[in-house]
């Protein structure tokens, strides 16, 4: 094997990478600082953007120069302004993704240019597209996106029907999965972006400050980030100890004071968050009646959560091959070699469709359809002028209920012209929408994974097939050697299937020009 594919879990607080090496199983890739987990931070220094521990170091002195949780802003117009320049979320993720790639390259001693990225289940297609684009800019030529809870399910390798709850620092995701002889089929995925371990840290930080009589700093203050880290440590300690003494660090109070917090107090703080999670789990549980409950993600270690789950739903299972923090990255690494031993079939979590002129949503791909999937719909223009094709995702049929993913305007449509819309969700979890006009065979593709709406993708094989049909019709009666040469030209064009898209288009143009000339001759 000359190319490794790594799995990446780009968490809210920590990022991790892993690779599935034949014969050795899944290996977590250590970073340049010797750790398995890299802080998901990007900081700005005079040398440019830095990531990981380097950014954590910047955090100590200039916290306003450090960003985290860029993932949350993907696909939005959020920017980080620094040194007279603004950076998009994709650009901000770049140093972190490059760092993970380089660490993997140093670990594997070869170039790595393919990855599987885990994304929260609630990520929309534009967000996934932006994530894939960021990875491509970071030097990954081939990128696939997998859902975080689904990846975790894949890493368990168990059979039967189970519910995976992934409770991380920034997100809460759930997937219902059925494992059956190495095939893992997802039946449903749900996620919330507003519940995460960080909310717990924030609550705890506030309480600790109040108890210790330390003023709570506003975010952006170096002391605020210090406080959050302190709270995280106390939270982790409270998972195993009943009572923790928090020594107030020198940055916050200089008299060496300390304050005790016990688990009961902590639990009363987070009780309402836990109730909300329990509700979500219970709903899924009642709907599908799974056999097991698996919990992954660092925040799932919280004893209160485990206790509540055990009392009201089911004793959470942690019989995982890897620790709860590593389940997602291990699953992503396994997904990279999909089909080798395990096959994961994910589903579309919300229907995809297009909005017609009457603001009605015409669903093209239904909720729950196994992926990859494709669908096609042909419309007839009801008038001339320009029309809009609006891609929406959501269940309801009324205008405004679904989420508009993208709108494409087609100009100069003539009355009665047919317009074909192709939806394709590829194996990489990305959506491609292609709009073809039947009348003049002009083709326009909007790919939601690509920034530029005019970016063209090309199914070379099928395009060539169309042209070959025309050639074979044309060339009836041509001398044999002409026919052979025509076939050779088409074969040459087909050989470009793995090459640059612009070359493919050039080849098709050559074919089109030739066909047009031949047709004219045959006609004249």
């Amino acid at each position, binding site marked *: 094997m000359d190319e490794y594919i790594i799995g990446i879990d780009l968490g809210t607080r920590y990022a991790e990478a892993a690779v599935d090496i034949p014969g050795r199983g899944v290996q977590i890739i250590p970073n340049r600082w010797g750790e398995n987990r890299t802080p998901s931070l990007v900081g700005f220094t005079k040398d440019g953007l830095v990531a990981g521990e380097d950014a954590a170091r910047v955090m100590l002195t200039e916290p306003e120069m450090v960003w985290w949780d860029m993932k949350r802003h993907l696909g939005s117009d959020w920017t980080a302004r620094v040194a007279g320049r603004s950076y998009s979320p994709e650009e901000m993720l770049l140093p972190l993704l490059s760092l993970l790639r380089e660490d993997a390259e140093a670990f594997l001693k070869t170039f790595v240019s393919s990855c599987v990225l885990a994304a929260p289940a609630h990520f929309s297609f534009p967000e996934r597209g932006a994530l894939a684009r960021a990875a491509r800019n970071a*030097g990954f030529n081939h990128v696939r996106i997998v859902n975080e809870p689904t990846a975790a399910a894949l890493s368990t390798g168990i059979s039967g029907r189970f519910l995976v709850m992934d409770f991380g620092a920034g997100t809460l995701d759930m997937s219902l999965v059925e494992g059956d002889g190495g095939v893992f089929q997802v039946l449903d995925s749900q996620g919330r972006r507003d519940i995460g371990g960080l909310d717990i840290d924030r609550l705890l930080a506030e309480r600790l400050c109040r108890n210790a009589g330390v003023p709570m700093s506003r975010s952006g203050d170096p002391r605020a980030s210090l406080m959050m880290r302190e709270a995280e440590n106390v939270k982790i300690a409270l998972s195993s100890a009943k009572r923790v003494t928090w020594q107030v660090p020198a940055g916050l109070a200089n008299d060496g004071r300390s304050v005790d917090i016990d688990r009961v107090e902590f639990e009363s703080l987070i009780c309402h968050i836990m109730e909300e999670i329990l509700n979500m789990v219970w709903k899924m549980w009642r709907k599908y009646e799974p056999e097991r409950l698996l919990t992954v993600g660092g925040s799932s270690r919280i004893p209160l959560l485990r206790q509540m789950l055990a009392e009201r739903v089911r004793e959470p299972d942690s019989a995982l091959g890897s620790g709860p923090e590593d389940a997602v990255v291990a699953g992503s690494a396994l997904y990279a070699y999909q*089909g080798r031993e395990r*096959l994961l079939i994910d589903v579309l979590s919300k229907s995809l469709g297009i909005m017609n002129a009457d603001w009605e949503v015409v669903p093209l791909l239904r909720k729950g359809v196994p992926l*990859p999937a494709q669908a096609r719909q042909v419309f007839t223009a009801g008038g001339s002028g320009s029309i809009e094709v609006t891609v929406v995702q959501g269940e309801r049929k009324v205008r405004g209920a679904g989420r508009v993913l993208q709108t494409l305007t087609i100009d100069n449509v003539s009355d009665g012209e047919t317009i074909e819309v192709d939806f394709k969700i590829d194996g990489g979890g990305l959506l491609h929408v292609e709009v073809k006009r039947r009348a003049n065979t002009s083709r326009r593709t909007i790919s939601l994974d690509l920034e530029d709406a005019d970016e063209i993708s090309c199914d070379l094989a099928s395009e060539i097939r169309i042209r070959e049909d025309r050639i074979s019709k044309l060339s009836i009666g041509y001398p044999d050697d002409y026919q052979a040469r025509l076939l050779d*030209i088409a074969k040459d064009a087909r050989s470009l299937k793995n090459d640059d898209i612009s070359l493919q288009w050039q*080849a098709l143009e050559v074919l089109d020009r030739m066909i047009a000339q031949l047709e004219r001759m045959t006609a004249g």
Partner: protein
Amino acid sequence: MMRDAGFETLGLPSDATWDDVKRAFRRLARTYHPDIAGPSGARKFAEITEAYMTLKETASPGLGKIPTHRAPNVNADRKTGKRESIFKRFWRRFFSRKRKHKAKEEHSKSGGFPPAAAHLIGGVITRAESEMYGVLSRREEFASRVKSDAIIRRLKSRRPAVTLLALRRLSKLDVNDDIAAAVMEHFRRNMPCGEVLEVILDVFSNSPRRDDIVRALLLHAQKFPEQEAVMFMGRLKRWGAKPEFMKPFLSHKSSAVIAGALSGWPGSFSGEKSELAVLLNRDDEAILIPLLRLLKKEPLPRRLGGRLMSLMKEHPSAAVRVWASAIVRDQKLS
């Protein structure tokens, strides 16, 4: 009826349960999923997916339970399904045969091509062939651009291990201008660490761009640690380097490095007047001995006589005194 077509696609009897459907779907997915079967499986996978979705929607709402309504009049329905597909196939064949036939007929009517038309067609094909050749020849260019982009990106890494990977890969390739420019640009700004330096020198040892790369690296000559500077000079000497390449090392802080530079000095040293004066005024034995050895072969300006005289008389090292006196004697500087 759609329902039965679904059962048929999945290879199930029409009284199969929802659990059977799922199992069959997964079994078929194991074969036809595009991740296993490649793009050729896509069509079949789409078919089984469609069948699965159809059956899912007609199945009872409770997942995992046997569908409540079994298909009425199963056999008749299935037969219709089959009949229709056979029917369709027949029509398709019929039409295609007819079309071919028609085309042939037309052709025979026109009675083949007149030689002039055949000639014109040949011209069109030839032109298309040469255009296609042009496209194909650009393919190498594209592929190598992708390859060199990947290498350049890694060369610039802050992590030496990755830079090393890129350099090692570079050694297996023809280094093009883009890469050479990127290497120079990068190392002009960033000092390579020991192992990286060694590999760069290896990779470019036989390259026509070697001197340019060396010039970029020499910007850091004073900052290289002693061992690396010595290694670097060793290479330069082996390549028969010009004095301009050795000169930067003369202002290195380590006397061992300066001594190393002097002991293999290419050509005449007395031309380097400013360096000569500075170095001669140092008291370091390690520097003076190779310096004096160099100067012995060359005519020296008389103004250096004073310093040489004092070295001859006062320097604590006997070797320095001997070398100095030899020069003074030979060149009659006293």
